[in-house]
């Protein structure tokens, strides 16, 4: 660093000397609104001397008094300004109608004109992002950009998303985009949920490797560049906004509403074949609802003072359908966002302050999240020296229900999710009558009717998962303009995250009568006898440091413009976690690890990773219509072996604006702009297992097996995955071509891209024969190909004084294929299914990635008919699994529109995704409990499986006579609860296609004439908005939202009861500007 400062000093001195001999005209180019106009070309009339303004509109040129400066550029009208006596000449120009002149923040924060770029980018402004008042920035991106797929994989007060640009390149590694906030790369995509969307000026997506190469290994999956607001010149502006939103339950699996519980499994059959009432049963295989008062549960004993049983009290409930799911999630969750911002600026600097308090209440009772953001951004210019800083602080507190307890509960991690407990409640249960578990005998854990499930209201009150995160992101950007064409910048950014998590679950001392299990049901009290209070604590600290020093060169020689850049990057990431777990605490309701009984579980881990890079970037522009861009990065990364540590990211792209190059096309009224582009690059992705950053993933470790240490006796066993010390990064070679066209004075813009990428040397953990002593071996093998087409059309359909109507359509078609896996290995399982369903999500050679593979009924290979048992009529499961389609959509269509009339603005976003399948895992649970819709389709009568055959006399014959022997669940051998839960998977796979109305908003800007009475309010906007209002999906999918996923990793494509139900959101907002 000292060397660096010395160098800086030398450069400062030398350039001052140069300056003293020169006289300069400087100024700033702005538009009619006072906003800077970047990159305009300024020439001295009648000479070849010229310069161009920088990204902020500032320019500097040597000129004499009396000469005339001509300013021109794409998107502005040419204008002349005479040079006066003074040294400062600000220029105001008029913008032309165009979307192609916009400035794009590209890699490393470099602002460039869109026309120069030989690759696809897409920009989303603050307004587009926030039109539906999202709390989570990523959900505000849905449907707006081609090639960007944002999946809301789980819904709650702190939803999880998966953000993927142009599909999946790594079979087992990360495929989610890199987030860059104000120039600081953050490789944890979930960081996006911590940003206040109101603070964001733009989100720019660098879709492909070609655009992102210079960011290095972290950017192989594309980049979302988030730029926060900076103050604007002029009078200080204060805005205050408030948005309120109501979340309501929108979808849950279609359930049957005909049959109650009171019948079910096991040996409870009367000699005449009728089923004995089993009132504690969790299965809904009982009689048809008849509305009669019916005892629920077998009765709770009421005791005399001397301890003898006085009587049994029985809870009497009407035997009719009450829809427990809807009842439980009845109360809407209310979200409130309060925003305050302050913005100001002058010639020398800007200042922005933003504050947001976002409180999100879920539809699950008591689930809440609260996020508070404070942001301070500023800049200051001192002559040639410019300093910018941005400082963001946020804290987020989430408090959600933890797991319930079950028959084997020990730690807080054993139990079932709340949604499972609610959904599987028999339909006639008045679920909300069980809130008072403290004193109501039918609601407390002893007297609750269900022998095998927890009262969800107990879980709400007694099992909590609280996470507090504190994030700070600081960024300082110092730049020094050495001379007109050389600029030196140093940007240092630090993020720090502290996380505290505490999961607690109360204990239960079950009543002796419940432990005695009077029903002989094997109920929870008799199995557990005592539920110990339990807790889990984790604290986590993470720090990322990133420093870029960049020397930038920008000079025009005749018709050639050279923009060159050389930089050095240093980055370090560090994380430390300490966790403690107590499965049995001394006191119920007092959750401190020091009150643990026995030895607590404990763990500590630390990870550190560093990298150094140097990079070079050159753009040669010829006559404003041909641009050649070349870049390279050399990276040295600590997590790899020294021999594999260094790798390169070369890339190049070209952009040709033919409407400017071909004179006959200049100023054409119909085709106003046309550009073709092409690019190629190679990027590397380090994919080293599950450790953060891939650190320490080269040498096998010894780990204490379960139970160790026993007192003073230690023990270490070799881990079961055999690591590979010489593992290399995965290499992606990406190519893209495309064009941008503007029609009718750029009122219609069309942009298209085709990309193709091949990723080789995948890092895979090959499942190997356990006879090697290991179950997996890490190797570099396998290849995946991605290709896709992206089309974006934006049109201003109507533009009059009062009316504006804009429509945007974005479409992406995506295809990928696993070309190779390991030698001799054709498939690799990425994840399994819950609920006992066989198979899982796989990568399979020759097929798209990833695919669902699961079991089907045993079928006649000749005609595909299901083979049933000639006696029972039951089909059986073919143990050989089959492929049931890919889980990533192949076609995504997004439509955005915005209509303005006077002060009214109506906006909407809708999107379609299709071409993929989903495994609805929760179906098997619902079939087991008899809650599912299809389990009641045949009124629980015996039926002949359609299109079936059975074996008779050594050959298969059509089945017209053998009905399933048991349509309900008599004697615990029913068709639905036993046959449908025997590992069958195909019956739960449906198309994942959907149309969604993502966002709708209507705002009204109160006219100035009204506001003139209160002259301290400059602007007032009121609005209403809605999100996820409507979803259309194929009829076969009566399960859940197919965008949801168990997993926000690569193995997307299965949903279960581990996600919370999706919601529909309505809201209203008010924004005031002072």
């Amino acid at each position, binding site marked *: 660093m000292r060397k*660096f400062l010395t160098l800086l000093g030398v*450069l400062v001195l030398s350039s001052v000397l140069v300056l003293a001999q020169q006289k300069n005209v400087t100024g700033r180019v702005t538009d009619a609104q006072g906003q800077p106009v970047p990159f305009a070309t300024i020439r001295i009339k009648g000479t070849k001397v010229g310069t161009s303004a920088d990204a902020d509109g500032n320019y500097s040129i040597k000129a004499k008094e009396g000469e005339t400066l001509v300013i021109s550029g794409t998107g502005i009208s040419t204008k002349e300004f005479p040079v006066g006596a003074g040294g400062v000449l600000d220029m105001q120009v008029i913008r032309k109608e165009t979307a192609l002149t916009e400035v794009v923040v590209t890699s490393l924060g470099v602002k460039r004109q869109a026309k120069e770029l030989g690759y696809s980018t897409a920009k989303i402004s603050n307004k587009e992002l926030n039109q539906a008042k999202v709390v989570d920035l990523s959900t505000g991106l849905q449907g707006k950009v081609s090639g960007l797929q944002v999946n809301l994989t789980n819904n709650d007060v702190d939803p999880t998303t998966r953000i993927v640009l142009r599909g999946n390149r790594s079979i087992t590694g990360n495929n989610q985009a890199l987030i860059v906030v104000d120039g600081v790369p953050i490789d944890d995509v979930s960081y996006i949920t911590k940003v206040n969307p109101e603070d964001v000026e733009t989100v720019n997506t660098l879709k492909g490797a070609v655009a992102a190469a210079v960011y290095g290994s972290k950017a192989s999956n594309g980049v979302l560049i988030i730029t926060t607001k900076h103050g604007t010149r002029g009078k200080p502006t204060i805005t205050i906004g408030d948005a309120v939103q109501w979340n309501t339950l929108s979808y849950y699996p279609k359930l049957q509403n005909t049959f109650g519980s009171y019948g079910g*499994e096991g*040996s409870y059959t009367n000699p005449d074949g009728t089923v004995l009432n089993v009132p504690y049963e969790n299965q809904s295989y009982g009689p048809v609802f008849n509305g009669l008062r019916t005892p629920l549960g077998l009765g709770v004993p009421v005791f005399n003072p001397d301890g003898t049983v006085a009587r049994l009290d029985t809870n009497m409930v009407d035997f009719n359908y009450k829809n427990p799911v809807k009842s439980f999630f009845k109360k809407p969750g209310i979200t409130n966002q309060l925003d305050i911002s302050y913005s100001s600026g002058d010639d020398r600097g800007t200042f922005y302050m933003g504050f947001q308090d976002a409180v999100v209440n879920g539809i699950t009772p008591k689930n809440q999240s609260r996020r508070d953001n404070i942001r301070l951004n500023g800049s200051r210019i001192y002559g040639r020296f410019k300093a910018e800083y941005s400082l963001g602080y946020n804290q987020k507190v989430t408090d959600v229900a933890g797991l319930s307890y079950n*028959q*084997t509960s*020990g730690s807080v991690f054993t139990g079932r999710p709340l949604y499972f407990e609610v959904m599987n409640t028999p339909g006639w249960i008045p679920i909300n009558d069980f809130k008072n578990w403290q004193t109501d005998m039918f609601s407390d854990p002893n007297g609750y009717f269900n022998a095998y499930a927890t009262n969800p209201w107990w879980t709400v009150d007694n099992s909590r998962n609280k996470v507090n995160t504190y994030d700070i992101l600081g960024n300082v950007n110092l730049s020094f303009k050495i001379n007109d064409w*050389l600029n030196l910048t140093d940007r240092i950014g630090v993020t720090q995250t502290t996380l505290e998590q505490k999961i607690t679950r109360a204990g239960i001392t079950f009543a002796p009568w419940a432990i005695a299990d009077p029903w*002989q049901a*094997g109920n929870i009290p008799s*199995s*557990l*006898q*005592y539920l110990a209070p339990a807790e889990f604590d984790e604290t986590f600290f993470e720090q990322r440091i990133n420093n870029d020093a960049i*020397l930038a*060169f920008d000079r025009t020689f005749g018709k050639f413009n050279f923009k060159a850049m050389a930089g*050095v990057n240093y980055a370090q990431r560090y994380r430390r976690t300490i966790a403690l777990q107590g499965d*049995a605490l001394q006191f119920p309701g007092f959750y401190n690890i020091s009150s643990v009984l*026995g*030895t607590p579980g404990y763990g*500590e881990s*630390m990870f*550190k990773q*560093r*990298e*150094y890079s*140097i990079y070079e970037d050159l753009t040669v522009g010829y006559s404003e219509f041909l641009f050649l861009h070349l870049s390279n990065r050399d990276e*040295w990364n600590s997590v790899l072996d*020294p021999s594999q*540590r260094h790798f390169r990211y070369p890339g190049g792209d070209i952009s040709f604006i033919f409407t400017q190059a071909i004179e006959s096309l200049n100023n054409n009224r119909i085709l106003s702009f046309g550009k073709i582009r092409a690019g190629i690059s190679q990027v590397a992705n380090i994919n080293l297992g599950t450790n953060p950053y891939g650190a*320490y993933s080269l*040498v096998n*470790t*010894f*780990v204490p*097996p379960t*139970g*160790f240490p*026993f*007192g003073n*006796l230690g*023990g*270490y*066993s*070799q881990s*079961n995955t055999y690591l590979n010390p010489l593992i290399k990064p995965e290499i992606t070679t990406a190519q893209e071509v495309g064009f941008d066209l503007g029609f009718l004075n750029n009122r219609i813009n069309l942009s298209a891209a085709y990309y193709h990428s091949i990723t080789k040397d995948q890092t895979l953990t090959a*499942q*190997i*024969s*356990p*006879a*090697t*002593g*290991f*179950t997996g*071996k890490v190797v570099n093998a396998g290849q995946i190909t991605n290709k896709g087409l992206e089309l974006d059309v934006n049109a201003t359909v109507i533009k009059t004084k009062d009316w504006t109507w804009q429509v945007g359509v974005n479409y992406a078609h995506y295809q990928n294929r696993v070309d190779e896996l390991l030698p*001799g290995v054709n498939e690799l399982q990425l994840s399994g299914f819950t609920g006992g369903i066989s198979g899982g999500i796989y990568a399979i050679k020759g097929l798209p990635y990833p695919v669902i593979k699961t079991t089907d009924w045993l079928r006649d290979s000749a005609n595909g008919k299901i083979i049933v048992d000639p006696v029972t009529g039951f089909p059986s499961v073919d*143990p050989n699994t089959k492929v049931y389609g890919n889980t990533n959509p192949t076609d995504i269509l997004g439509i955005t529109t915005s209509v303005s009339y006077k002060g009214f603005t109506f906006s909407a976003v809708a999107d379609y995704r299709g071409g993929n399948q989903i495994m609805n895992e929760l179906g098997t649970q619902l079939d087991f409990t008899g809650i599912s819709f299809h389990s009641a389709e045949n009124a629980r009568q015996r039926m002949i499986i359609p299109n079936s055959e059975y074996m008779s006399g050594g050959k298969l014959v059509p089945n017209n006579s053998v009905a399933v022997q048991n349509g309900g669940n008599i004697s*615990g051998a029913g068709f639905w609860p*036993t046959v449908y839960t025997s590992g069958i998977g195909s019956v739960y796979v449906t198309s994942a296609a959907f149309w969604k109305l993502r966002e709708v908003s209507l705002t009204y800007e109160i006219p100035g004439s009204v506001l003139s009475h209160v002259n301290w309010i400059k602007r007032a906007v009121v609005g209403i908005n809605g999100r996820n209002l409507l979803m259309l999906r194929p009829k076969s999918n009566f399960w859940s939202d197919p965008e949801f996923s168990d997993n926000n990793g690569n193995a997307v494509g299965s949903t279960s009861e581990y996600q919370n139900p999706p919601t529909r959101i309505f809201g209203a907002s008010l924004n005031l500007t002072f």
Partner: protein
Amino acid sequence: MKKLLIAILVGSLAVVSCTKSLNINNNPNQPTSVTPNVVLSAALVGSAANVSFDYPNLPCWLGYWSRSGNYVPDVQTETYNIANDYTNTEWGNIYTNMKNYIYIERVGQTSGLPFYVGVAKVMKAYNMSTLVDLYNNVPYSDAFKVGTEVQPKFDDAQTIYNDLVSELDSSIIYFENAKTYYTTVATSTTINTDNQYDVVYGGGRPNGSSDPVGRMTLWEQFANTLELKLLIHQSQVSSQQTFIQTEIAKIVANGFGFIGAGQSANVNPGYQPSTGKDNPFYGNFYAVTGSTTPTQNYYRAEATGVNFYINTVDNRGFFFYSAVGNSIAGNHEGDPASLPNSNISAVGPGLLKGYTQDQLLLSDFESLFLQAEAVQRGWLSGNAQTLYQNAITANYVYLYNGVTVYGPIDPNADALAYYTSGLADVDWTASPNKLEAIMTQKWAALNGINWTEAWTDYRRTGIPNLPITSSPTHLVPQIPVRYLYPQVELNTNGANVPKLGNNAQFTAKIFWNQ
């Protein structure tokens, strides 16, 4: 321009000097190399965990346990219609734990630590012979070569067995070397450490020894007993008869004898009533909170076993099974009319003593039964009747030990009364077929203790005459003779896995099953 070049040069130099600070990839979280003692303790505890509850279907096939009437049955177990993935976990458990013995053997060889080499050979034979007894041909000579061979070939079962016998022979040499090592070379620290981490025969064990020479002798007895067991498994292989006798002569010649009463090879690292630290067998039945587990509720008494103990007036019945009222009761495996748990005995107090109970690897009563059989077959000199009666007594002693629910009781007296009852296959002198008596009583003693050995004995001798499953949909009216090769092996090493025909579990016998 020169300045620009200098700037780039300085920058590049800075990068080069920085590469040193990239050497930060040493794992601070887990060690990457350790001494063999900690691997030994982990491996032995791992073996104990494997042996405690791997292949838990076997008690259901062998008349010991049965499924519960309360729960949905395991269809594969009770119909014998097993799939390849039926034993994936166990296959993996044994092989992956065994790599730790391979590590110890290698480090022991290179660092001159003969004890670790000896133990590795014994435990390798212990595990590999189990695999052969369950699957016949398995990977052996190519196994544990992960760096070079990820698709190991399958070796001939007989060849593996012969090699294991010679490994056990050579283990004696290493234990002898270890005696020299501990008396002449090793420091007292080494002696104490090795002693502590030997969780089978270390000085901290009631059946162990603090004196390294005594400890090595115990291991030699373990090796000899295991070798005898492997040889006896081949009792029906006519071509091996000479080999068996030659090898037994070698065992006799080394003079260390076999595991005697009270010297069971068992593991106890200091089991505690804490999740994961409790005895693995007990932990399957009771959570540390004292509550019963689904396993406890799932595996109940089988009528075959229950009736045997009742019919032979054997008090051990109340130790293998819990009492229901004043008696013990069982279901028949696979019976659709199985009674619910309240009517049926659970696994009993003689097996489930507590969280801290020892985990048997090779019991004294199994050793005595093996010796009794060897004597009876004329391969070993001695008194078969005494060995037989001592074996029964040792089993009584094991079961009664630590059980207080029945008040003060004397296992020796009960055993004496039992084996002098005058009943055939109980009382030696009243038994017309001595081998049948030995095998019957061995089966009766191994209930819930060593079901793989009981299955092996049943398959090679057909004793006792066990009923098949009561499942109406069972596949073939015969208890399976082997497991199928695990799916995990077919997936990863399919080309090498021997091809078995349909219903191979009834036909493709283990080599010693002739």
